[in-house]
């Protein structure tokens, strides 16, 4: 796999993962181009398309597009299921995941992706073992956080500390049911 992108229907990039060194400029160009192509496609169209010299596999879950670019020889269907497995992992971890979870806990989304995929290849396909690794890491974090003295009132929410977004967001958050089309 060359890269993986998550973006919203409005064309906002939510997560990007590159498995081949690409310059910033090139990345931006590719992201912009690919988003245009994918967003223009109708829901009933097939999930694969040829783009530049790559094959793109994408799937839409609620308002989010998951988009993988693979090479000519790679298997499209299994990549599609790779996306699904990743969504399942997110879902399991966050408990019915939504776009805001990925926005506010982006680092978790990355950690999960890293545990699942590495260098563009599947590292472990077992849901259990991936989640176990993440939980262990979380546990480490908890322990560290408790014995650190600076556990003062941290009233503002900010990304990265694992705090959930304010209740206002929760109320209106759209759920991400794994949609099928």
């Amino acid at each position: 796999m060359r890269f993986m992108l998550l973006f919203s229907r409005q064309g906002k990039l939510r997560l990007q993962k590159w498995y081949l060194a690409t310059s910033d400029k090139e990345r931006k160009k590719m992201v912009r181009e690919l988003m245009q192509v994918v967003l223009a496609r109708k829901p009933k169209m097939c999930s694969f398309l040829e783009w530049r010299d790559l094959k793109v596999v994408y799937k839409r879950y609620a308002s989010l597009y998951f988009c993988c670019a693979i090479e000519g020889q790679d298997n499209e269907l299994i990549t599609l299921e790779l996306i699904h497995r990743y969504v399942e992992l997110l879902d399991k971890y966050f408990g019915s995941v939504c776009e805001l979870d990925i926005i506010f806990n982006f680092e978790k989304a990355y950690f999960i992706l890293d545990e699942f995929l590495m260098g563009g290849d599947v590292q472990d396909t077992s849901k259990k073992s991936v989640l176990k690794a993440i939980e262990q890491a979380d546990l480490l974090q908890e322990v560290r956080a408790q014995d650190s003295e600076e556990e003062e009132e941290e009233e503002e929410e900010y990304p990265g500390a694992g705090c959930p977004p304010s209740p206002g967001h929760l109320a209106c958050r759209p759920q991400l049911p794994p949609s099928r089309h």
Partner: protein
Amino acid sequence: MSLCVAYGDHREGEVHRGVMPWAGASVDMCLELTSGVRSLCVLTCAFTEHECPNSLPMRNIVSLSSASPVSYTGPSYCGSSVARSQMWILMCTTRFRSTIHAGQCLWCVCLGAQLPRCWRLVHMLPADEFSAFPASPPFSIGDKALDGYSKKKYVCKLLFIFLLGHDIDFGHMEAVNLLSSNRYTEKQIGYLFISVLVNSNSELIRLINNAIKNDLASRNPTFMGLALHCIANVGSREMAEAFAGEIPKILVAGDTMDSVKQSAALCLLRLYRTSPDLVPMGDWTSRVVHLLNDQHLGVVTAATSLITTLAQKNPEEFKTSVSLAVSRLSRIVTSASTDLQDYTYYFVPAPWLSVKLLRLLQCYPPPEDPAVRGRLTECLETILNKAQEPPKSKKVQHSNAKNAVLFEAISLIIHHDSEPNLLVRACNQLGQFLQHRETNLRYLALESMCTLASSEFSHEAVKTHIETTERDVSVRQRAVDLLYAMCDRSNAQQIVAEMLSYLETADYSIREEIVLKVAILAEKYAVDYTWYVDTILNLIRIAGDYVSEEVWYRVIQIVINRDDVQGYAAKTVFEALQAPACHENLVKVGGYILGEFGNLIAGDPRSSPLIQFNLLHSKFHLCSVPTRALLLSTYIKFVNLFPEVKTTIQDVLRSDSQLKNADVELQQRAVEYLRLSTVASTDILATVLEEMPPFPERESSILAKLKKKKGPSTVTDLEEAKRERSADVNGGPEPAPASASTMVGPFLMAVPRTSAGVPSPRDSGPAERLPVGENFLLNMSVCQEPIGGIKPEAFLSPSPGTPKTPLIQMAGLMQTACSTPSPSADLLGLGAAPPAPTGPPPSSGGLLVDVFSDSPSAVAPLAPGSEDNFARFVCKNNGVLFENQLLQIGLKSEFRQNLGRMFIFYGNKTSTQFLSFTPTLICSDDLRANILGSISPLQTKPVDPTVDGGAQVQQVVNIECVSDFTEAPVLNIQFRYGGTFQNVSVKLPITLNKFFQPTEMASQDFFQRWKQLSSPQQEVQNIFKAKHPMDTEITKAKIIGFGSALLEEVDPNPANFVGAGIIHTKTTQIGCLLRLEPNLQAQMYRLTLRTSKETVSQRLCELLSEQF
């Protein structure tokens, strides 16, 4: 970039002005600086102090230079919590980055005078981005110094901002610091930041590598995991250098935990992909293969990926993996869906692993060991059987996973291409998928069928599954690919008809490709060329807009090369043109073909000459300029073909709308053609306007276009596969090698070729060859003034004094025009651009850039004969400089005063492409100081790295003589021809005498100056034996060619030759006098040169002595 710190509170209605600019500040400085200030927001922008009128507290703040470390000594500001407003500021800043970088003071623009507007802008931002923005600024600094926790927090926030799509160019250092923390969370965020933001070429890599090294050595599996992930994520060469030796050890060590093993395998894979040379193969490879037997399926999955990639490059070393993979696969395939626990995905056992194992097996031919082979066949059969079973679950995931394995199995079957039974089953399976309601499956089935179609066995089987009723455009595209792939002589007519009918409803995005494919198939499998002509005309009718130039060029090439089809083609286009509305491309084809072969149908009263002409002319006014230009050429051809319509045509040409057309090209053609038709006799007309000679056979330009469109890999593979398979493909018409002169047209055959710029237009469509000789006609008979951007004086004749017949002049002009391969100079003027200006080189030195490149690594010794050729060019400017079996180098140069321009023509004499074609000019430093040159290709791109067979490319060298010089630059050409590397060096004949301006003077003047230059340094004399017969006329020509004026009746002895001239250099002008005294009895010459500069005398004498 400078960094500026701003703070403020919008609720008070304004933001406090506080700006601290300094140069070259880094983030640490900023952090340090801001540690005393509450609630600061860090902005990056660039401006200078005086540009910012609002910078009031500037005095209180230390202005920092880039050199000195900084500490903040200003007052402490107690801002209240203004987090949100500061975020807005930040957003504005990032939004306005371009403005900032332009050197404008963003602070003024954004937060000063135009504050209200700025707010409005912020409020207009999309709601989701707005709410998504964290309420606090990225660096909200308390009174404490930065501890690890806050550092982590800030880095995380920066990351967040980056992920929202804004640029982050600071904070890297903080992230690197976090790596060395031993708190897991801090380390984790540090690694994340680096893997997301650090590009492989960052300078921080060394620091990062250190941290990673420590973590790898820590033996703490969690830390090792993080470090391995980081390596895999960045995966740069530096990392490969540092860790490629280390990771295999971790991978095969007995005590490594499973999860670390997985990471290590994939990490190694990533490094191998980036820099395969750095990963040492060793005894670890055999142990890696045995990971296929590992208990832990996760480890097996990761290891299979690694082995597959390694096996592609080193098949021998990993051969043992085949049997292991087969047995593993067989265990998975036969297992019950519950056996593998969590590795079963929607009732499919380990689909990922199965796919990867099948992929690994595709690196090898079918196993030789019959047992293994049997077992594999069994596996594949089981997989095919499973496809027929009722699904265990209704979920799409189940069928997807199952079919993923199935498709991979099918591609293995196709790859092996050895079991007919399996192939037929696979093919039937794909046939079933073609009818499936799932779009994805139809797409994939078509894709697999494409590969299947080029496999020997199942060709017949595929044919039964033609089907193109499909709504999804990408699937239809696949279907077209399949049709294209499976086309052969037996079904060509059917398939082409089908594609044509499909074209009528096809999506716009794929029409052009279909058009190309139809054109190719029609040409390739045409038995009956009338069918071909019909097909292409249909093509133009249905999708005229998508018919590219190449397609209609090709029709004309084929019609002209095939006698049998010409009459039919003329008749068909004539009929097609009768449609009330026809596409312009049809008019082009029609115009061309009727102009050539209209006589073949003129016997029929329904298509008499006048009717043909009126039909074409009725379209004339609806067409674009290039087409009209083509039609004008058709008219003049009609004048020759049908003398009876001559007056009608002359009337048309004479009409104001032609003769005074605003378009220069049209006007010029009208004027020239009218003149030609009036002055030229029938014989001349017949010769000039003769039927075009056959085109030389070349690769179809359409195919080249399709290749370009599709990227090199896809088409060539298919083409090659097809070529091997089907010997019944048309070899095309018999090759008709056309020599250079026939290319230019019969008219020039009588003309001696003075210049060697081989005039073979590079990718000549028919258009480039049609109206032979219009430019010269203009010069010959119409007028002597520049018209249409063609300046006669631009083509400097090498020696103005030489009497020339008009014919030769014409030839020179023709050659110049023809040998310019740039499309803009095509003679028909379809490109509608005037020929590239070759006027006198610009005199301003600013344009002449010194780009004589530095010597390349390896330069071939001078080619044999180079010296001789070099000498021949001393007295002439044009000719062939070098020639061998592969390559011909022609020169054409013009010099005026101290400036010169040299056109170098590289002609590929073979039919194969030259690759990586790189000509370089090599000059010694000395020489470089004395002549400045700039090589600039006439076309926009530098000389094309590929030169097609039979084609010619051109390069222009601009030369300026700064002061006198003796050496000559060397032209080195390197290219690949059929896999071998070619390296040619020739001396480029740029000699001092090229900058000669002849001076006429009377006898008295001459001797007066001769006496003035009497000091011994100024005179150089050489007495030498004649190498060539001593012919007075030749000698005279040589002296004139040398550049000096030949002064008659100056020397008292009429047998002697006397010349005078001035050498122009940028700095000085050097007067030169020369005298050549032949001695016929002794067959000797005495050459005397007197110039004001010793080195010049010396060099000129050397050069000239060589000539006699």
